[in-house]
């Protein structure tokens, strides 16, 4: 096998558990979309072009007739603002990817494949083949399962009964463990978790993601300053 094929295959293998969880979530989302009157074609177009799970769930909850397209666009923008920081972080590791491809490849950057790319970059250079191995199966699965959900209608009546509603949280916890580097990471996680949970309870909309992320980053910056000070005085 060529190096490219090996890298692509490794990406696919790494993302498989995510695919398993995302299929269920995609089915669920498609079912909800159908209940709001979207056709299977519209459901597929939306999932393929927006390709953002959290934002799509928020959007479908706000969906009504006549379609408030501007309001939906703005809401989705707020939910996805975290992508700006994610993309900024990921672009530091895109040195091995042809520069003409970078902007196009970012279309498929979602929480999970981004997290795996960041993790990969901790130990070795990020390649386009690995990135596509992570991303392409996700786009395909998300689009197909959304359409199947829209066609199948309401067969998945109560996802909570099987714990499916918890699948994404569990997946994220699994991914988070890979970022653990000691007590400092614990401080970042605690700051982010507390601020995000409080923001969710007090501020309407999806700002909790932005605020929690910033709180975690602030904790890291403060700890870094302390460390530098200690180094300067010793």
């Amino acid at each position, binding site marked *: 096998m060529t190096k490219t094929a090996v890298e692509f295959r490794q990406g696919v293998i790494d993302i498989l558990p995510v695919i398993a969880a995302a299929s269920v979530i995609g089915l669920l989302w498609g079912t909800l979309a159908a209940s709001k009157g979207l056709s299977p074609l519209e459901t597929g177009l939306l999932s393929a072009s927006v390709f953002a799970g959290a934002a799509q769930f928020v*959007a479908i909850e706000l969906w009504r007739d*006549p379609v408030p397209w501007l309001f939906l666009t703005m809401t989705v923008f707020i939910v996805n603002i975290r992508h700006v920081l994610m993309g900024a972080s990921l672009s530091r590791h895109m040195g091995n990817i042809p520069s003409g491809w970078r902007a196009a490849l*970012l*279309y498929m950057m979602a*929480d999970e494949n981004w997290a795996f790319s960041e993790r990969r970059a901790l130990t070795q250079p990020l390649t386009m083949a690995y990135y596509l191995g992570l991303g392409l199966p996700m786009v395909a699965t998300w689009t197909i399962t959304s359409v199947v959900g829209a066609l199948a209608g309401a067969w998945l009546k109560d996802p909570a009964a099987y714990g499916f509603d918890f699948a994404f949280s569990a997946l994220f916890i699994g991914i988070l463990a890979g970022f653990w580097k000691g007590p400092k990471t614990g401080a970042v*996680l605690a700051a982010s978790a507390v601020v*995000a949970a409080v923001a969710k309870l007090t501020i309407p909309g999806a700002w909790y993601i932005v605020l929690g992320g910033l709180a975690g980053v602030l*904790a*890291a910056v403060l700890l870094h300053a302390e460390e530098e000070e200690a180094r300067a005085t010793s």
Partner: protein
Amino acid sequence: MTLHLTTLLAIVGMALATYATRVAGLFLMRHVNVKGRTKAAFDALPPAILMAVIAPTILATGVAETIAAAITAASAFLRLPMIVTVLIGMASVVLLRMII
């Protein structure tokens, strides 16, 4: 197979808004020199954001979700395969909801 104009408008608007957020970081980074404190901030970003997304579910939903999250975290730290970790999380939330 139907496609309504306002639905299409919403889809295009949401797709463009999302892509804008995805690609913005690439251009942002052309003017930023990443070292020292900035590097510490960027290194903290992945865990901070992942945690912020799930925090309302694991901390502000119910006792069952919070305990299930702790069990899931323990499985993750034991280096169990990812899919096993996810299944343990799902199973524990179902069981805990029955008990609590």
